Structures are given as C-alpha cells and as structure tokens.
C-alpha cells in the first residue's frame, strides 16, 4: 500500500533520516522501533504528508504521495493519524472533535455526521464521554478519542505514534486489545513505539530505525528472539 524509498530529511543541516526505505503491506501490523530521537516522529510526519522529504520516493497505491511538493489527496484518504500528544481540539466536545472534520470533508448533513460519530465512539467505549470536552477525559480516554477521530473518515491505514507512552499497564492492555480488534476489522496498522513488550505483543513485522537508517526490517518474532 505504501512504499518509501531512500527517504532523506533534514530540519536544519544535519539529516535526521538518511535514506529510509520500506514497504507497508495491506492488512499487516507494522511496528516502527528506535531509540528516542532516532527520527520516528519525523518519519510519521513524512508518511502523513506533513513534511515533504528532501529526497527519495514515497508511493501510495503506486501513486506519488507528493505532487509538486504538495501532498496528494490519497495521503489523507488512505491514512488516519494519531499523534503522540493526541492534538485533540480543546474547544470542541468529544463528539464535535469527530463531527467537525466529518462535516467539512463529506459535506453530509449534520445529523448523519453525528450518527456516524456516535456509532464510532460507541465502538471505542466512549459513549459516555461524547458531551465532555477533551480536558475532562482521562489520558486513556483521550487516546481513544484521538483514535476515533483518526478513523472517522474511514482510512485504510492507522498510523499511531507512541500509543502507550502516557498509559499505565492496564490502559496499555486496553489499547492493545482495541488495536487488535481494529486490525480484525481490516485496518492496516503502523505503530511507532519504543515500548518493546508492547511491540512484541502487537506487531507482526518490525522496522528498527537507528541514526537515520533502517537497521532491521523483518518478522517481529525473529527480531525479539534474536
């Protein structure tokens, strides 16, 4: 579905990504691992179209993801993104965090958008939170709201940055179950994490980033047994 080749990116002089390449296949759970500062979030920003790579090729369904330095519509329609800090909209209720983008993007009537959003929030166990504002929700709930918002436009791939970094054991387990059930419904998952036990429990395949390069790409089982 996604193919990255020889991606290079520098914020300033020093490149953070130095020729990163890998593929993402339909239906898989891919983990992107690496130490803090290894460029995982930078890579997420490139995959989600927020940053344009300096060099290299990025294809989505065999189409270029960037056309003349601008991200193609495919990037948005294919990917749902959950940020490390969630970036929920603080001025909107939980429900409106989903309804606002849904309305703007689909131009459907409000009632339909609300119905879609409520249904999704219900699936994620957030039915009782819909009238709250994000700050009134717990960290685990905010995480699930962010996942719900990423899914509201029906992406094929969910790209999620450090899903367990602010969660305790119990909530980590919950996220694991949730992501697995989403995968069961046909979603492809790209999980960025430095939580190795979590990656081991979740991922089928892993990539390790180190010093701007991919130093491992293969089965999770072999990675964790090595």
């Amino acid at each position, binding site marked *: 579905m996604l193919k990255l080749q020889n991606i290079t990116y520098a914020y300033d002089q020093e490149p953070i990504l130095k020729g990163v390449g890998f593929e993402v296949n339909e239906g898989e759970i891919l983990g992107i691992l690496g130490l803090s500062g290894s460029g995982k979030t930078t890579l997420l920003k490139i995959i989600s179209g927020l940053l344009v790579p300096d060099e290299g090729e990025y294809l989505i369904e065999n189409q270029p993801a960037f056309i003349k330095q601008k991200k193609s519509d495919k990037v948005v329609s294919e990917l749902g993104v959950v940020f490390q800090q969630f970036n929920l909209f603080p001025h909107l209720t939980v429900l409106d965090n989903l309804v606002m983008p849904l309305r703007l993007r689909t131009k459907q009537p409000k009632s339909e958008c609300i119905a879609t959003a409520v249904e999704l929030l219900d699936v994620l166990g957030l039915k009782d939170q819909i009238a709250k504002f994000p700050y009134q929700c717990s960290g685990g709930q905010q995480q699930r709201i962010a996942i719900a*918002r990423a899914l509201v436009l029906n992406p094929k791939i969910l790209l999620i940055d450090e899903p367990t970094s602010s969660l305790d054991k119990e909530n980590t387990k919950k996220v694991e179950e949730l992501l697995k059930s989403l995968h069961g419904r046909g979603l492809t998952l790209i999980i960025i994490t430095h939580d190795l036990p979590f990656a081991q429990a979740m991922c089928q395949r892993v990539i390790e980033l180190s010093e701007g390069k991919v130093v491992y790409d293969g089965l999770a089982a072999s990675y964790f047994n090595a």
Partner: protein
Amino acid sequence: MEYWLEILPPIAQGFKTSLTVYLLTMALALPLGLVLGLLADMVKPARPIIGVFTWIIRGTPLLLQLYVTMYAIPLLIPMRMDRFFAGTLTFVINYAAYFAEIFRSGLAIIPLGQWQAGQVLGLKKHEIIFNIILPQMFRNTLLPLINEAITLVKDTSLLAAIAIGEMLRNAKEIVGKDLRVDALVIAGIFYLLFSFMVVSVGKRLEKTYLKQM
C-alpha cells in the same frame, strides 16, 4: 434634585458622544486588530511592518496621538479636520494596535499540533483557520480583550483634549459655571454604570466561552 434634572441633559448628551466613539472604536478596531494580528502571525514579511506600527502606537501617549491627528496633520496636509472624525480615527488606530498584539499572542500560543491535526484530516487552510485556530484564539484573548474594553470606557474622556463635547468635558464646564461638583458625581455614576455594563457583557462571554478549558 431639581438642579440634577437641570444639568442632566448636557451630561447625557456628552455621554451619547462618548458612547458613540466607544462603539465605533470597538466595531472598527476589533476587526482591524484581528487582521493585523493574523497577518503578523501568518505572513512573515508583514511581521516587521506591523511590529513598527504597534511599537509606535503603543509607545506614545494616546493624548499625543489625538493632538497629532487633530492639529499636526492639518498643518501638513491642508484640510479641515473634523473633531469627531479625528477623535474616532485616533481611537480606532490606537486600539487596533493593542488588539493586534493581543490577537497575535493569542495565536502564538496555539500549538502547531492543532494545525497538523487539521492537515492530516484533510482540511483546507481556511477551514483550519475558521474551525480550529480562530475559536481557540478567541478563547485565548477574551480576558485581555475585556480588559481593553473597560479601559476604553475611561479613555473616551481624553476626547476632551481636542475639544469634543464628551461627558467629562461637559460635566467640567457645568462645575466651572455653577461652582457645584454635582455634575462630576453624575458623570462618575455614568462611567460606573457604563463600565459595569461592559464588565457584565464580559462575564457573560467568559461564562459561555471559557468553561471548556
């Protein structure tokens, strides 16, 4: 009591003038300040120009600015300057500079992640601005804006300096003529009621918009 009824009309007349300038200033300076604040935040080349503008306006007394508009400009460009026009124009420009700074800082504290969240959802730039950025900016700036709105109530008395018959000037004239201070008391009451109204509106806005923080 009879005396009060007698002096009330000129004071009320002055109040009307003060109120008109107040309303015109708010109605024009807010949108102007918003545009300047947005430009300063989002258009890099505009930043230094707006910076110099706000520095000059905020760095000199409003009284001086009133004199400049009323007396200095007609010396440079031969024209008849209308007092009311000069007063209102100066207030609008002065308050727009303060509002621009308030809006700019209200925008600056919105995390970049808010833009990014909008972008990955496929929203267009104007959709992000109107649905994500401006509502948050509005919340961030409400309290300082209310403060300015209260200050403006009292600043309108500076209009007297360019001989506009606003409330305080009219009251002072009555005091000078009758050698009684009642007019000042009445003017004081008007100012208090006026700022009380502004504060109440501010409280209402706070209640509606600042609860979700």
